[in-house]
């Protein structure tokens, strides 16, 4: 297991406390993204991306030409008015940018589709309250639509990485997998996920305590936590969609009418995607 990447707030002092790590640095606004990136580089760490936790819709953000090469993960509550966004589309398409929107309200699912269709890479942050049917439609579009469009995560990742003989955890796409990402607060305390960071549930006082993540008990236990579903014979353990869900929505209790139906459909679409790839491999057009 390689060292997990670090997700931390933009804090120069904090960044100086470790080196040679890959860092996703969190900022509250687009305007501080460049400074945050510069501070990561200065700290002898590697920049994965700048996570912008914006309270404003995407359309209201003032992207500038000089930001186009920064790796940006923009987490916005919504897309905003498309007529505002349209003016910046050309720049946004050239940006090294992935836009994350919450899966609910349902309008966001429409926005994700629109953004994808105009070539902007996106991610749907799904929780148990999402409209699973509408999400299924978005997923089908993301994976099977032949008209060029940018990837929508996690669907593109699941479709291209699904292997029936193993589990697929896509939490890392959203910085939520302690095997790949550890979250730090301003004081450098370590949490295993963004949610646990918000709840101040820390597993170590500093990242230096975690020299070998595979040996660190809390990480080790978390990576094996899925087994508890089987010990308890939780309904998720018997769900046909388990291998690509791993009980992520167990708490929502949406059951077979919700997440289970969606993930079964996702599996079917992943199969079809794979079939299509196999077909494409065998197809060659004549060469002049």
């Amino acid at each position, binding site marked *: 297991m390689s060292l997990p990447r670090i997700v931390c707030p933009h804090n120069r002092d904090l960044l100086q406390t470790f080196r040679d790590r890959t860092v996703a640095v969190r900022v509250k606004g687009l305007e501080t993204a460049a400074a945050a990136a510069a501070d990561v580089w200065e700290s002898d760490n590697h920049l994965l991306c700048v996570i912008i936790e914006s309270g404003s819709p995407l359309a209201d953000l003032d992207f500038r030409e000089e930001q186009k090469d920064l790796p940006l993960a923009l987490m916005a509550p919504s897309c905003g008015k498309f007529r505002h966004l349209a003016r910046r589309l050309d720049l946004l398409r050239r940006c090294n940018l992935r836009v994350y929107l919450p899966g609910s309200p349902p309008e966001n699912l429409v926005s994700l589709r629109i953004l994808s269709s105009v070539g902007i890479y996106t991610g749907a942050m799904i929780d148990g309250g999402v409209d699973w049917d509408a999400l299924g439609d978005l997923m089908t579009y993301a994976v099977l639509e032949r008209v060029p469009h940018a990837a929508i995560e996690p669907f593109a990742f699941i479709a291209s990485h699904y292997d029936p003989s193993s589990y697929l955890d896509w939490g890392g796409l959203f910085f939520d997998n302690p095997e790949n990402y550890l979250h730090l607060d301003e004081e450098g305390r370590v949490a295993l996920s963004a949610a646990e960071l918000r709840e101040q549930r820390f597993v170590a006082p500093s990242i230096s305590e975690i020299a070998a993540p595979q040996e660190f008990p809390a990480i080790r236990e978390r990576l094996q936590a899925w*087994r508890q579903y*089987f010990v308890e*014979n939780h309904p998720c353990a*018997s769900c046909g969609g388990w291998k690509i869900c791993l009980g992520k929505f167990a708490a929502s209790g949406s059951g077979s009418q919700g997440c289970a139906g969606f993930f*079964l*459909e996702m599996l079917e679409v992943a*199969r*079809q995607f794979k079939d299509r790839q196999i*077909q494409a491999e065998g197809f060659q057009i004549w060469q002049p």
Partner: protein
Amino acid sequence: MATVIFKATEACNARCIYCDVVHKKPRAPVVMPLETLEIFFSRINEFLLNRPDEQMEVIWHGGEPLLLGPDYFGQALHFQEKHCAATGSRIRHSIQSNLTLFSRDFTEILKKLGITSLGSSYDPILNLRGLGTKRDSQAYNRKFMDGIRLVEEEGFGWGIIYVVTKLSLAKPLEIFHFLANFSPKGAFMFNPVLIYDNPKLNRLKVTPKEYADFLGAIFPVWWQQLEEFPQVEPFSALTSNLLEEGTSLMCSDSGACARNHINVLPDGSLSLCGRAADWSLLQYGTIFDKSFSEVLADPQREVLMERNTILPETDCKGCRFWKICHGGCPLDAWSGSGSFLHKSEWCYAKRGFIEKYFEPMVNPSAAVAAVTTKEPQHPWPPAPPANLARIGKRRRAKDPEARLELPWINPIGGLGDTLMVSGVLKQVVDRNSSRQFNLVARTKYRPLLAGHPAIAHIGHPPPGSKFVIFTTNYWEHEDYRQPGKRAYQVLARIFGLTPPVEERLYVPWVFRDDPVLMGLIPWKPRNVLICQSSDSPRKQMGLERWEALVQRLTQIGVGVCQAGRIRDSYVRGAYSLMGLTSTRQLISLVRHFDAVVTSDNFIMHAAQLCGVPAVVLWGPTSHRVYGYAGQVHLQAKIDCEYAGGCIEGGDGGHLYQIDCPRGPAHCLDTLPLEVIFNAVMGILKDLGKEG
């Protein structure tokens, strides 16, 4: 290969409810003494020296073999190296353990013995397997999962045996998915529980038919996504044996146990197998006075050999499955008939499963021939199935192109419409088994149609490709505008049948009761299921009127349950099942009610499917179009500008989801309550006469 089932201990840390070993008094000694262990390996050497081409498999069994501890296995290796210097390379070790005692201390020695994979068993249903005399299944499950985790970390493979009991029958797919999810790279096997002489355990016993049906509920799912699932027995072996002329037979089916099986107990006593030892049958003396060659030549084995020549002329005469069964386990035959010279009492489990579930799925045309031909004309092996070309070495070949060329069905409409479509498709495939369709995947319809014999694939049509598509929107077809129209008949014509056809409904799965749900309902001597809701508010009778009906019924002691979705309006006084049932559970549940009172909705169709009498309340739609003969149809008089029903045809589509503006004068609310009540009572009284 000769096989020794080696029980160096019969002690066990668990008390699985159906285990014959732990329920007997342990035979002394509990652990095989080291002196006996040494003799065991010298006997192996003696046997292999006499048979230079032979190999021997030693299956460490029990009891729980890990109770022996790693040092004991070390001693075994020591004795093997000491006595089998020239023959050790022909000894294979394997182990069957509950894994609750597995620790890293076992890793080195098990690997030195050449063990790379561990066999185990598990049951997610509580209180069947458990640790200690109290059978603590939660502790067992935790320790088992810890064991599996360690086994994986130490680089071993593993597989699971799942024992099918009565408690399993209600949830075959749940159990299947549990095991498949848990061991995506592994393998698992279903075995029926074997209970012979313990009446207390009859509640767990399954019949051969129940076992076949259990497998039959799972097989379509496994078969349709072969590439997705691990190796699952008996499916994998049957696929190999029936379609690829393989010879992968378990001991019970091989007809060869007499030639190669020996069971060794801790005290050195010898018998045919573990079950023979448990029942004190086919005992061959002890390891101290008999060589393995002598044991395999014991005259008691002759009757088992004769079985292979007698059964094909008697019980198994003409059976086309002889070569993959050989009459089944002789011990089963003995327990059923008192003689080894009969076929196993589990014959139907295999034959029934193959004929009822396996063949119709892998080769529908061959299956029809097989079922209609009582004495099979074709000896083994059966003719290759017509679609064998689609079957790969062990897995069905990917042929997405051919599959996608089939016509697609685009399902539209409610779940009731889907039941009609399913019934029509069944008639289509019954008449011409080569007619198959793809189904456009939509979340709502999958639970009803998955596994349907007419549906080859559920997915999405490739964009831009040319394909034939059937849309089930019968209400937009020309026929539907004709006088005397019947929705079912229009659908039949859409799929190429010539009306009139019999209006049969169908679901491609076995009804299964959910024990939790069944236990939840406060059943009364007479029970009525009501369903007030419909996709269209215009097809619903007012809530107050439903509540008045429920009050009348409950006052006279009739149990009333309400089915529906979680968002539907609750009818006070009814026991609400709204949102608690999946589509399949709801249909299965309908069977248990004495009567159904419903709007024109899915439940009306489900009642017909299940043969449950129904009172159906009709307003803007007509029972002449949708209703079934045998149901009680109460058609409200329409007294508004839409004489033909406001949502029927024409411009009615836009009104479908809008409330009727007439309020209390809404046609359905004019149905006299007394008439509805009397109709329900008429059904219940009729049942009383019958019962």
